[in-house]
Every structure is written in C-alpha cells, then in structure tokens.
C-alpha cells in the first residue's frame, strides 16, 4: 500500500502506456511525463506568487492581496486573465523576431532543466549519465534569451538590464558549478539519480544528506548564494532593479510575454531549488528513517517549497547589492571559498571514516571563513558603510 502510494504516478503512467500498442505507448509515456512537468510547475508557480506576495506583505507588516477569492487565493487567476487579455505591445524600433523569440527560448530552456531532476523514487523524465552537466548546460543557455530580450527591445534600460544579467549570471555560474563539483567528487557520478541514492542512507535514523557534512554545508551555502544570483532573485536582482532600470530586460514586454518572463524566472527558481535539494538535501529521501513511509515525491516537493520560502524570506530582508559589490562578492569571496571547499571535499573523501576528518574539515572551512570574513570586513566594500558628507 505504502509502496503503491509512493509509486502512484509511475504506476499510473505504466498502466496508461500498457493500454497502448508498442511504439505509440513509448511515445505517449514520454508525452505524459512532459505534460506532468509542464502542468505541475506552472501550478506551483501560481501558488508561489500568491505565497510570496502574502509572505512579503506579512514581513512588512502588511496584509497582502486578499481581495480575489478567500484570502486572496485566486490572485494568480486574476493575474493570468489580466496578462492574457492585455495588449501585446512590440515597440516600433524593436527587432520583432528576436523580441518574440526571447521569452519562448527562456521558458523552453528552463522547462528542459526539469527533465533530469528526480522528483521521487523512479520519478525522473530521463536518467542521464551526465544529468548534472545537462542541467548546467541548459542553465547556461538562459543567458542568451535574456540577452535577446534586452537587445531586441531597443531600450537602454532593457539593454542595461540584459548586460547586467549576463555579467552576473556568468560570474555566478562559476561558483555554482564549483560548489556542485564537490558533490560529484564525493558521489563519483554526474547522474542526479545516483546522487540522491547515495544520500538515501540512514545511521541511527538520521539521513546521510550532504548538508550534514562540513564540506556539504559550506557547499550548500555557496550554492544557495550562487543560485539566488543565477535566478536574479533579490538581493541579486540588479538586472531588473526597479529603482533604476524600470524592469530591466523585460521593460518592453507586456501581456503574456511579460507573464512568460515572470514564469521563466519562477521556473528557474524551482529548478535551482530542485537541484539544490537533490544535491545537498537528499532529494526525495525522508529526513528521518521512520518517515520513510511517506511518499518520496511529497518530500521532494516540500523541500523545494521550503527552499522557495527561504528565498522569499531573503527577498523580504535584504536590500539590493551594487554592481561592484556583486562582482567583488562573486570573485573575491564565493569563488575562493568554493575552491577551498573542493580541496576539503577531496580531504574528506580520502581521510576515511572517523572523527578526525570531521574535525579537520570543519576547522579548515571555519578558519578560512573567519580569516576571509575578517579581512573582507575590514575592507571598504564589505564593512559598515562610511559616508563622506552625511555625518
């Protein structure tokens, strides 16, 4: 019974495929999985927008949307109708073809990232040998669509936003990859399915998630920072900084194309959270051995939603960075720390079991953090801001 519930979607798919003859069945099977992804994540997106607006409101001692439906739950429906019925404006001097293609490319590419994420036991679209590599390859192509959007609009704000976005995404892709490589080093596989399976073990009822190791914890923090920057979320939302760039690269988009950009951004958040969950939080595995009877997909989605909530929390807390702070942070702090973390992960791998490796690895990471933190705090870019004229 428990097993059936855990595998319910897989069994359902197999049952439908079984009804159809050979080659058609295989085709329908793929189509079903794709349809599930395409249906579930935009649904989550709708849920997240209302969650975010309510949550941010509460953080700022406001109520948030509460007019559409009970407690404002139908707000995404209203937003959807609005964006569908709005006039689709393409600026006269815009490059119409590229302007049209940009949001499509973004959404398609972001959707592709979901295909390798294991969302439950046996629940992944493709189990690729190089799943992680695929994910990052796909992630790298979103930059191009953002550039297309910014450039084709023929608007200085759009172009500035696009340039910022591309510069930021390239910079943070490096620490993102580097922090994930630590996981690959320990697991010995690029397959996300294998990475989850490696974490799905328990000692004394506690899981072997990578976040519970010194290197994993450090890598997770770096990954979270880089992923936030990669998805252009606050405090790294310079590409769409409302106060200076109107809306950044999608300034000149309206109606459904704007909604597509919005969707792309949130889907990017979901896929990044999903990847972070898979790499460090044990994917679909239960947080305690006794909770194993709960279906695996519930664990995956609750972990993803939890990370989304943390992202919303961060957005409600932190002010936007300045461009130079952003770059300094990426290249002078996050990247060196991830490189050090790679070294620590290698140490962990070859020091064998025992308490010693815990002590050594934690000491190296903490020491580096304290030293780097102290020196950086003393420097102008990070320390308390000083004003020349205000005092």
């Amino acid at each position, binding site marked *: 019974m428990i097993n059936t519930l855990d595998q319910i979607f897989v069994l359902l798919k197999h049952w439908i495929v079984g009804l159809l003859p050979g080659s058609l069945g295989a085709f329908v099977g793929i189509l079903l999985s794709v349809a599930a992804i395409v249906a579930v994540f935009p649904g989550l997106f709708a849920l997240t927008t209302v969650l975010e607006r309510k949550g941010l409101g509460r*953080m700022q001692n406001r109520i948030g949307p509460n007019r559409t439906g009970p407690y404002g739950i139908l707000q995404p429906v209203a937003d959807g109708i609005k964006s569908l019925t709005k006039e689709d404006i393409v600026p006269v001097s815009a490059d119409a073809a590229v302007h049209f293609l940009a949001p499509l490319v973004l959404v398609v590419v972001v959707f592709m990232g979901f295909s390798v994420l294991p969302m439950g036991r046996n629940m992944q679209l493709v189990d690729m040998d190089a799943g992680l590599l695929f994910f990052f390859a796909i992630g790298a192509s979103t930059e191009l669509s953002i550039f297309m959007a910014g450039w084709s609009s023929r608007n200085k704000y759009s172009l500035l936003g696009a340039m910022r976005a591309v510069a930021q995404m390239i910079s943070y892709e490096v620490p993102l990859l580097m922090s994930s490589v630590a996981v690959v080093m320990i697991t010995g596989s690029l397959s996300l399915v294998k990475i989850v399976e490696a974490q799905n073990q328990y000692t004394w009822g506690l899981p072997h998630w990578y976040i519970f190791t010194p290197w994993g914890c450090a890598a997770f923090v770096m990954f979270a920072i880089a992923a936030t920057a990669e998805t252009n979320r606050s405090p790294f939302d310079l590409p769409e900084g409302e106060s200076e760039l109107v809306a950044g690269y999608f300034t000149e988009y309206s109606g459904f194309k704007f909604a597509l950009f919005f969707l792309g951004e949130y889907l990017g958040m979901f896929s990044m959270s999903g990847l972070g969950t898979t790499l460090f939080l044990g994917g679909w595995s239960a947080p305690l051995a006794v909770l194993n009877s709960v279906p695996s997909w519930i664990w995956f989605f609750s972990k993803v939603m939890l990370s989304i909530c943390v992202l919303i929390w961060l957005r*409600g*807390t932190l002010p936007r960075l300045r461009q130079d702070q952003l770059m300094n942070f990426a290249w002078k702090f996050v990247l060196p720390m991830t490189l050090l973390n790679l070294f620590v992960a290698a140490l962990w791998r070859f020091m064998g079991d025992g308490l010693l490796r815990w002590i050594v690895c934690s000491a190296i990471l903490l020491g580096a953090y304290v030293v780097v933190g102290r020196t950086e705090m003393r420097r102008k870019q990070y320390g308390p801001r000083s004003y020349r004229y205000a005092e």
Partner: protein
Amino acid sequence: MLGEGILKGLAETAKNFAGSFVDKERLTTVEYPEQKLELPEASRNFPFLVYDGPEWQAGLRCVACQICEKECPPKCIYIEKSKDKKPDFVGKLQIYPAKFDIDISVCMSCQICVEVCPFDAIKMDKEYELSTDDRFGGLLLDRQQLAKSNEYYHKIHPTEASEVDGRLAEEKAKAEAKAKAAAAAPPKPAAPAPAAAATPASAAPKAAPAAGSTKTEVPPPAPPKEGEAR
C-alpha cells in the same frame, strides 16, 4: 563577523512575519471599503451649498451674489442668477441661483469661495468617494447635487457649523430688531396712510441692502481669524 548582519535582518523579518499574525497592533492596514478612518474635523475637499430647513430649493442660503464665482482661482464655479426673488432665511426677498455648477475636476480645494461668501452659503465638504465613469458630466455638480442640509454641515464640521449658526442667529435677531424698529418708527413721523403703507414696503428692500452691506464689511475679517484659530 561576515554575515552577521544578514542573520540579524532575517531574524527581524521573521519577527515581523510571525508577529503580524499574533499582534494586531502590527497590522496598521485599514481595509478601505469595509473600514474607514474617521477624517479629522478640519479636513476638506470640495465645496457644497448649505440649505436650512427641510426643503433644499427653498432653504438655499446662496443669493447668487457671484462673489465666489469671481474669486475662484481656477474658475470652476458657474452661477446664473434667477429672474424672480424668494425669501431668504431672514425672510427677505432675495435673488437665488437658477444655476450653480461646480466642476470638481477643476476645483483645487482652496476654500477661497468659502472665505469670501458673505452669506455662509458655501462650505467645504468631506466627501471623497466621488469616482464616476463619466469624467465630464459626472464631475460637474449642479446645485441639486451640491445642496446639503445644515444638519449635514453640523455633522461634518460641528464646531464651525455651530459658530456659523450662532452668527447667523445673531444677524437674524439684529435684522429682526431693525425691522421691528423700522416697523415701530414710521408711525412717529405722522404721514398719510397710503404713504405709511408704502414706506414699510420700500423701507424693507432698503434695509435689506443695508444689512447686506454691513454684513459684507463685518464677516470677511472674521473667517480668516477663525481659520487661524482652528
């Protein structure tokens, strides 16, 4: 320590988040259509015309003197005088506005019309739910829409309204006393009966402008003082 500030900030927002569910004091939002804030007494936006008694057409204090129309800086008031006369609150025959329009899309809420009005006939309203789907006709208020009772005036600006009422009562009393004096005076200079019958009738219109002129001289300095005091 690097990152300490972020943790502090996160704690602060978490406190706000949780607190907003527990502590009603934190949520200062007033949910407008259902809840409304009590406006301060001195608040104002657009002018309205005061009338006494139950009947708005009979009770309008306005005598169509057109001072407000001339003083209005954005020229949003349009008045047409009536051809006939009817008695005002004192009981004297007065011209009344056959047409009194205010375009509140032009009005800038300066209150100058109120300050120049010698008859306390125009006052500032507090009504702010004025949205309409017709931006030309809907925002051009005619005299029926502008006419509001003295009770309403008492409700929105109680102190000011009672002051005005006191002043008007005083004036009315004065006018009545004068009329009485005028009525008592004619018998003394002995005159033929037809002439005596004619004088009160001719004296009354004469007395009315006199009362009006004294009023125009006296009240204008008074309202600004009231305004300062308030």
